[in-house]
C-alpha cells in the first residue's frame, strides 16, 4: 500500500464575496496520519476539505499534496477521494458497480471490476451484497460501501466529510473503530471533518480545532484536551468549567487569578500561552468536571471553590452536581459512581477542590456556544 502522502495548506484564504470562510490556514498533515478538523458547523472545515479535493479554488495560498501544488488541477485529477456527508452513492447502480465506478472510468473490463469490487466487499464484510441497490442496504452498510468506493480509486488521501453524522449513536461508535482499523490497514492519509469531539478524539492522530474560519490549535487529542491554547478550544472540546478573572501574579508556569466570584485561584498556564499571559491580563481558567472533587465545606485556599448547589442529576456512571458559576454559567462537578450513597445538596453551599495542574489558564476569549 501507499507509504502515505502528506498534505500541506500554506497561507490558505478562502472568501465568498465579503465573507471570509477560511482565514490564513497553515496546516501540515503527515503522510499516513488520521487528521481531523474539529469545529462547530459553519466554521469553514468543509470549505477546507473542498479546497483539498479540488471542488473549490482557494482565494489565496496553496494546497500541496505530496509536495505538489494542486493549483488549477481539477477534482478528477487529484489523488484524493471524498466521502460525502450524505455518501452520494449512485442510486441506480448496484453496489458492486458503485464500488468499481472509478475503474469503469479508467476503462477496466466488467470482469476486472467485479473482481476488485468483490475484494473490497470482503474487506468491508459485505461479501454477498454486491448485487443489491444502495437503497436496499442499511445505513451502516451504505457507509462502508461509500468507503469501499473511495478506496477503489486508490487515492493517496481520503477525505471524509462528517460521514457518521447520519448514523445512530451505537452504529456511530462502532463505525469509529472500524474507520480507524481501515485507515491502519490501507495506510493512506485520512482527513476527517467533524463537529463531534468524541469522534475526533477517539480516531485522530492529530486534530485541528477551528473557529469561524480560523484554526485555533493543532495537536494530538491529549494536548487539545489537556492543554488547550484558547478559550474556544478549551470550551469546545469536552465539557469545561470556566472561571473569569484577571491575572494577579505569574510564577513560572503557574498563575494566580483573581476570579470574579470564586476568590483567588491558582492555575497552570497552558503551554501555548507561556510567557504571553502577563499580570493584569484578562484571563479565563478552565477546570474539567471530572477534575473537581468534594472538600469539607468552608475550606479556604488557592485551589478551593465554594458555591451554592442549584441542582443535581444522576447520569449512571456519574453523579453530576451543578453549582452557581460565573457569568450565568454553571459549575459542573462529575463524581464517579462507585455505588456510594449520595445525598441531595440542592440549596446548600459546597466546597470543591482541585489539583493546580488540572486547571488551565488561557487569555480571555470567545467561548464555544452550547
Amino acid at each position: 500500500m501507499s507509504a502515505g502522502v502528506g498534505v500541506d495548506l500554506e497561507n490558505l484564504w478562502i472568501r465568498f464575496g465579503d465573507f471570509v470562510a477560511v482565514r490564513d490556514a497553515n496546516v501540515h498533515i503527515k503522510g499516513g496520519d488520521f487528521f481531523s478538523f474539529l469545529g462547530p458547523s459553519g466554521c469553514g472545515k468543509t470549505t477546507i476539505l473542498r479546497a483539498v479535493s479540488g471542488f473549490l479554488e482557494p482565494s489565496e495560498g496553496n494546497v500541496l499534496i505530496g509536495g505538489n501544488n494542486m493549483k488549477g488541477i481539477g477534482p478528477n485529477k487529484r489523488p484524493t477521494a471524498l466521502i460525502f456527508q450524505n455518501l452520494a452513492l449512485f442510486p441506480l447502480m448496484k453496489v458492486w458497480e458503485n464500488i468499481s465506478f472509478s475503474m469503469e472510468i479508467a476503462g477496466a473490463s466488467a470482469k476486472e471490476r467485479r473482481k476488485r469490487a468483490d475484494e473490497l466487499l470482503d474487506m468491508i464484510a459485505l461479501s454477498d451484497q454486491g448485487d443489491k441497490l444502495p437503497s436496499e442496504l442499511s445505513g451502516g452498510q451504505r457507509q462502508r460501501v461509500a468507503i469501499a468506493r473511495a478506496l477503489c480509486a486508490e487515492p493517496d488521501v481520503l477525505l471524509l466529510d462528517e460521514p457518521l453524522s447520519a448514523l445512530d449513536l451505537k452504529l456511530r461508535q462502532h463505525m469509529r473503530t472500524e474507520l480507524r482499523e481501515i485507515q491502519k490497514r490501507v495506510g493512506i492519509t485520512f482527513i476527517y471533518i467533524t463537529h463531534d469531539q468524541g469522534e475526533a478524539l477517539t480516531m485522530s492522530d492529530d486534530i485541528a480545532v477551528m473557529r469561524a474560519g480560523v484554526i485555533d490549535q493543532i495537536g494530538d487529542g491529549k494536548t487539545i484536551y489537556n492543554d488547550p491554547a484558547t478559550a474556544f478550544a478549551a470550551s469546545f472540546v469536552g465539557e469545561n468549567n470556566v472561571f473569569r478573572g484577571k491575572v494577579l501574579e505569574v510564577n513560572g508556569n503557574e498563575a494566580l487569578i483573581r476570579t470574579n466570584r470564586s476568590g483567588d485561584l491558582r492555575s497552570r498556564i497552558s503551554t501555548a500561552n507561556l510567557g504571553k499571559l502577563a499580570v493584569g491580563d484578562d484571563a479565563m481558567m478552565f477546570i474539567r468536571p471530572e477534575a473537581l472533587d468534594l472538600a469539607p465545606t468552608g475550606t479556604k485556599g488557592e485551589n478551593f471553590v465554594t458555591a451554592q448547589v442549584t441542582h443535581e442529576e444522576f447520569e449512571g456512571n456519574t453523579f453530576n452536581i451543578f453549582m452557581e458559576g460565573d457569568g450565568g454559567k454553571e459549575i459542573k462537578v462529575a463524581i464517579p459512581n462507585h455505588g456510594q450513597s449520595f445525598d441531595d445538596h440542592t440549596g446548600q453551599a459546597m466546597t470543591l477542590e482541585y489539583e493546580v495542574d488540572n486547571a488551565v489558564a488561557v487569555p480571555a476569549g470567545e467561548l464555544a456556544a452550547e
Partner: protein
Amino acid sequence: MNNSIIRISIWVYLAIFFIYLLGPLVIMSITAFNSPSFPRATPWECLTFEWFSALFQDERILNGIKNSILVGIGTIILSVSMGLAGALMLTQIWPKLRATYYTIIIAPILIPGVVLGISTLVFWDRINRMLGLGADSFLSNGLFLTIIGQSTFIASYCMLVLVARLQRYDLALTEAALDLGATHAQAFRKILLPFMRPALASAAVLAFLASFENYNTTTFTFGEYPTLTIELAQKVRYGITPAISALAFMIVVLTVFAALFNEANIKRKEVIAKARKEGATVGDVTSGVKLPGFFTGNAAAITLVVFAVATIAVIGTATVYSPKQCIANVQEQKRLETQKRIQELRDQRKRDAEAAGQAGGATGAAKPSNNSGFGGVFAPGTLQGGDQGTAPADDAGSSNNSGFGGVFAPNNINGADN
C-alpha cells in the same frame, strides 16, 4: 340517509364526468363501424369495415401520418435536448437571475401558436434571404420549419417535465463522480442521464403528442409536408366521412394499448421489487391458480391481454365478414321508403292543390309533415314543387334524417351541382 344521498350524488357526478370525457370518443368509435357515408351512430344500419380500407387507400391521409411521424421524431430530438439544456441551466444559474430566466423560458407556452407559426416563418425566411439562398433551400423546407416552429414551445413543456426530476437530483452525485476520476462529460453520461431517463421518456412522449396534435403553428410552416392534422382540417372542409372516425378509433386504440402496456410494465416491476424484498422468486407469489408471473396482481396486464384478444377477433371478423348483403338490404329498404315518401308527397301536393283550389290563397297553412329536426327546410321537395333543378337531390336528401339535413354528404353536393 344523508350519507347515501351524498354517495349517490358522487356516483352520478362521476358518471356525468366520464360521459363528458369519454362519450364523444365512444360515439366516434361506433360511427367508424356503421355503414352510412356520413359518420353517425344511430340509426345503426350495417356493421362495416369499409371505412378502414377507405382510410388506408387515402394517399393524403397516409402521407399526413408519415409527415406527422417525421415531424414528431424531429421535435422529440430537438425539444428534449433543448429542454434538458434549459432545465440544467435553470438549476445552475445564479439564483438572482433564476426567476427572470424561468419567465423567459416559459414565455413560448403563453404565446399563441399562431404567432409562433408566423414568426418562425418570417424569421427563417429572413435568415434564408440574408444567406442568399433560394426558395428551395433547406431553411425554407416545410419539415425543418415545422420542427423548429413546434419546438419553440414544446421545448418549454419538456423543460418543465425535466426540471421536476432535476430538482430531486443530488449535485453531490456529480461531484462524487468527478472525485472518482470522471470527466464532466462522463459524469453527465453515466450519472445524470441515467437518473433523468424516466423524465426524458415522459418528455419525449409529451413532445410527440404535442407535435402530433399541433395545428396552429404547423398551419404556417408545413410547406410541402402537410401533417395529419393539416390534412384532416383540409378534408373536413369538403365534408367528413367515417374514414376519419376509423382513424380516430385507431388512435384511441393505440393510446389505450400504450397506456395499458405501460401500466402493466410498472405493475410487473412493483411485483418483482416486492418479491425481491421478500426474498422469494416471482413465481412463488401466486397461490391457487397458477398464472404466469407477469399477471400476478396485475389488473392492467390482464386488461391488456383481453384488449389484444378483442382486437385480434375484430380484425379476424373483418377479413371474413362482408357487409355487402346487409348494405344491399338497407339500400333496398331505403329505396322503397323513398318511393313511398315520393308517393306520399305527390298525394300531399295533390291534396294541397285541391285544398288551395277550394280555400283559395290559404297556401302555407298546412305544411307537409317531415320527420327531420329542421322541419324539412332542407328537403328540396317541400319547396312547393320548386324548380326542376333540385329534383334529383330529392332522393338523397329525403333519405337523410340527420340534424344537418345531409349538408355534409358528398352526394348532396353532386346533386346540387346538377
